């Protein structure tokens, strides 16, 4: 559990690390808008190319970005399959019959269980998953032996295929952009940047300094609370709670046995922390000077200009193409 680092900042020294966090946050927003402006797959591919170029110049390994994408893999696969199977616009590309026979159904089930039990030992899980899926599909398409129970049709349309790739690419680009931000910005800098980016909200009487303080303290206490959770899990395990397995009902009990002490401890902690902060002359909402300051450099101006160029280009593409 100790390995969980929120934001996953990886120290480095490329130009991406030297850009002011405010610039990065604003540029991220601008580029996201730009990505949403794009309407065709070719432009999206070009966008992906630009992102790859950014990664290469910024010396960020694609593997890190992939790790950031991994939690979204399910969503990516889901939207991709959804578009392919249910989007019926454009010309028909593929139309095959799926044979559900007394032979193929057991074969699929066997393949499924085979996958369930072997996926733990295979290294490239995603690749393996696609391999099994294609195996199942080819079984259904090509084996037409035995008594046929049912027949289905697999039809893929050109628009469906295009949209599937389009949406998937858009998701990948957006997640990659935000991953670049968190990979190259220290949590404290990110917090400072966020605070000054949010400053205009002061007109609406939003206390941005307090938001920043809350964020900073959350960042500070994540490792401490993870430590605490570890200790509680060990303590509960020594009293017989098994955190590794169990049915849904047991799982709920396990989580309760972890959450209740965590809540109590967190409240106690925050009470003590509030006392310590007040004792050190902290008054919520009062002006404070800052030790950490941000510096705007010419690099930031350049970076922001490039982001704006990207935005205007995508707007122009939307209007004229």
């Amino acid at each position: 559990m100790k390995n969980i680092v929120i934001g996953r900042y990886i120290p480095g020294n490329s130009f991406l690390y030297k850009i002011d966090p405010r610039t990065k946050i604003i540029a991220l927003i601008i580029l996201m808008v730009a990505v949403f402006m794009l309407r065709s797959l070719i432009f999206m591919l070009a966008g992906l190319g630009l992102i790859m170029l950014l990664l290469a110049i910024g010396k960020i390994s694609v593997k890190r970005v992939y790790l950031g994408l991994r939690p979204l893999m399910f969503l990516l696969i889901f939207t991709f399959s959804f578009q392919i199977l249910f989007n019926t616009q454009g010309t028909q590309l593929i139309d095959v019959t799926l044979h559900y026979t007394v032979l193929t159904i057991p074969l699929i089930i066997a393949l499924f269980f085979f996958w369930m039990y072997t996926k733990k030992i295979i290294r490239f899980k995603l690749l393996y998953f696609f391999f099994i899926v294609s195996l199942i599909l080819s079984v259904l398409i090509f084996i037409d032996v035995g008594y046929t129970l049912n027949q289905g049709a697999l039809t893929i349309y050109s628009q469906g295929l295009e949209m599937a790739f389009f949406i998937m690419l858009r998701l990948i680009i957006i997640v990659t952009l935000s991953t670049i931000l968190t990979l190259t910005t220290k949590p404290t800098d990110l917090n400072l940047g966020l605070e000054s980016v949010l400053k205009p909200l002061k007109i609406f009487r939003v206390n941005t300094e307090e938001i920043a303080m809350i964020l900073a303290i959350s960042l500070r206490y994540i490792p401490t609370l993870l430590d605490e959770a570890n200790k509680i899990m060990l303590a509960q395990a020594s009293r017989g709670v098994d955190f590794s397995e169990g049915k849904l009902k047991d799982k709920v009990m396990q989580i309760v046995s972890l959450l209740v002490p965590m809540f109590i401890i967190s409240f106690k902690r925050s009470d003590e922390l509030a006392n310590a902060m007040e004792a050190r002359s902290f008054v919520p909402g009062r002006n404070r000077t800052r030790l950490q300051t941000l510096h705007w450099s010419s690099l930031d101006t350049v970076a922001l200009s490039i982001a704006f160029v990207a935005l205007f280009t995508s707007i122009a593409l939307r209007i004229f193409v």
Partner: protein
Amino acid sequence: MNSIEIKNVSYQYQPNKPVLQEINLTIKKGEWVTILGHNGSGKSTLSKLIIGLLKPKTGEINVNGIPLTQETVYDIRQKVGIVFQNPDNQFVGVTVRDDIAFGLENLQIPREEMIERIETYARKVNVLEYLNKEPHALSGGQKQRVAIAGILAMHTDIIIFDEATSMLDPKGRNMVLETMKQLRHEGKTIITITHTMNEALLSDRIVVLKDGRILKEGSSQTILKDKTTLEKSNLEMLLPLKVLYDLEQENYTNKRIKDLLWELSLNV
């Protein structure tokens, strides 16, 4: 000049369950006073009253001659620093540098002076090399010294150590005690709140609390030998002193042995 005057102060968290009753205590400038008491004797409550985290039910508190009220509490907090028991729960910053800066930022000290003070006091408590470290990379003793640096940097006249050593290992405790001794030489007013004798021994004066009342008050030398008071307040006497006391009961007269035992207890 008096640093702190506590006059007739009482406090209760719940009705009819007083935690502190009719406390009268005066602490002079530059004095080191220990407030000694068992768990639940109200000693931590007293420290929270002095810094205005709690408001006394009756009585009044003066700090540096200024009465503690709603209006003056923020000024008084600039005069009084407090180091709490749990080093983890008073570490506000993400790094050591940020944490020492926290109090200074609150006092609206300009950035250049902040940087200067952080270095000065980090060097003083010997955490200079850890300035960029995060709290979970530090030991308890180191974290507690960071907390002390954070208070020192705020230039407070009075420093309260509220069981500041009770969660530390012997090495960490000694480091903190050394810092306290150094502070006494600089003329700071120190209040230590504790239930261990070794710490109490270092101070000029001991105030023994029991069930929210002052049981006894006197120089550390007299209180430490006062067997009846210590027994009444469930406190353990230092072993060499215990021996010394027993010898005195037996009318033992060898001055050399007695001196030796006294010396020994001072170096526990």
